């Protein structure tokens, strides 16, 4: 057995043992342990929700012609424009989050009308207190992402929050946060790309 094979065998065996151990833990116990480690379990659930939301949001843009219910490509943001954003460079650096995927996938290019999948806010029923709380949590995380100069993630989180609580989008602090993230994104776009 070569050194490379031996190392990989050891990694596989270690992984199997650890996965077995982790899978044997009950949900209540896992939540308890996270809480004991100072982790907000609601935040972990929020991240899972955010991922699912980003999945749905991202999927809307990549609909194929085979799907008759999907919005027309002509009405969708330019893929070329979206690809021009160096978000995937960040992804390659393994810092991208699921939220970033959704944002870049759904981000409308300048002058492009928004995708017709978003229902007008007037037609949306008022959000429940729970949804408003979840949106608040997403916006707090968006602010944190913006502070860390992760504008794509920030915007994705803001979009997810808007889905839950459209009225909150009109707040001045939320508008300012979105503006800040968009400015950051423009700065990243303006930087020369490494060859």
């Amino acid at each position, binding site marked *: 057995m070569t*050194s490379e094979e031996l190392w990989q065998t050891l990694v596989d065996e270690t*992984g199997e043992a650890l996965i077995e151990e982790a899978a044997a833990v009950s*949900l209540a116990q896992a939540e308890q342990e*996270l809480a004991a480690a100072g982790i907000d379990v609601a935040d972990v659930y929020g991240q899972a929700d955010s*991922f699912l939301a980003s999945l749905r949001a991202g999927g809307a843009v990549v609909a194929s012609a085979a799907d008759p219910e999907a919005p027309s490509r002509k009405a969708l943001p330019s893929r070329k424009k979206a690809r021009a954003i160096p978000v995937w460079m960040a992804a390659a650096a393994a810092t991208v989050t699921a939220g970033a995927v959704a944002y870049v*996938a759904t981000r409308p290019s300048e002058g492009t009308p928004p995708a017709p999948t978003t229902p007008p806010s007037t037609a949306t029923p008022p959000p429940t207190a729970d949804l408003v709380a979840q949106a608040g949590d997403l916006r707090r995380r968006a602010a944190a992402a913006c502070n860390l100069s992760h504008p794509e993630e920030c915007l994705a989180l803001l979009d997810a929050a808007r889905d839950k609580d459209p009225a909150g989008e009109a707040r001045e602090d939320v508008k300012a946060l979105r503006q800040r993230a968009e400015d950051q994104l423009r700065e990243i776009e303006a930087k020369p790309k490494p060859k």
Partner: protein
Amino acid sequence: MDAFTSSGNYLGTDRIGRGLTNAESGRLDKLLRDHGFRAASVHAFRFALKLAKTKGRAEDVVSRANLRLVCTGWDPNAVSLQRRLLRLVWSEFTHDRREEVLARRVEEEFLREQGIHGPVPPPAAARGDPLQPSPKEAAASSIEQEVITLEEEQAELAARRKKLDALIERLRAGKDEIALEYLELRRNGIVSPAKMVEASGRKVDVKVFYEAARRIQRLVERIAGEKPGARPGNDENEGGS
């Protein structure tokens, strides 16, 4: 190619070579929810935190694991969502990319069967976007791409050698002779600790080798998560005999 098979297996965007349609995204969302994605995420986060130690790194590992779930797929008939996520967390933590390589090989095989020759370049999704792979990806790679792939593979092998060297170095530093012998015997194809006792000629109980295996696993867990070139952390004394 559909993103889902008739048995409900989600193939992943790498395999189908395109993004998901609205209907497929909705179906994946429902599939994940039906199989307890939220609860599985708690388990995945707990596992990631155990491995990565810090909240920030754990979040990063889980985010990447989620992305790879979309890229590489999941067969709910074969493995639970919780275990699938745990495996992806481990593989992200150890920077393991074999699954992507495997997916690429499957794709190459498919194209060969279709009469299209030449290796396939890395799918767009592997470069970061699981939902928007390029629809105009070339069917055959250029010489440059082949060189890059070869270089990547060689770098991966070199990284593994370095990690094994780091493991041996730490065992030597801890004067863990039994663990070092365990490694040598594994290299020679001996897996059973009982046979290791025989082969070593030592008059020791078999549990001595089992314990050595556990010490090695603890070190492997630590070293596997280190980025190449990282300085070793402050190890606890792993010394054996």
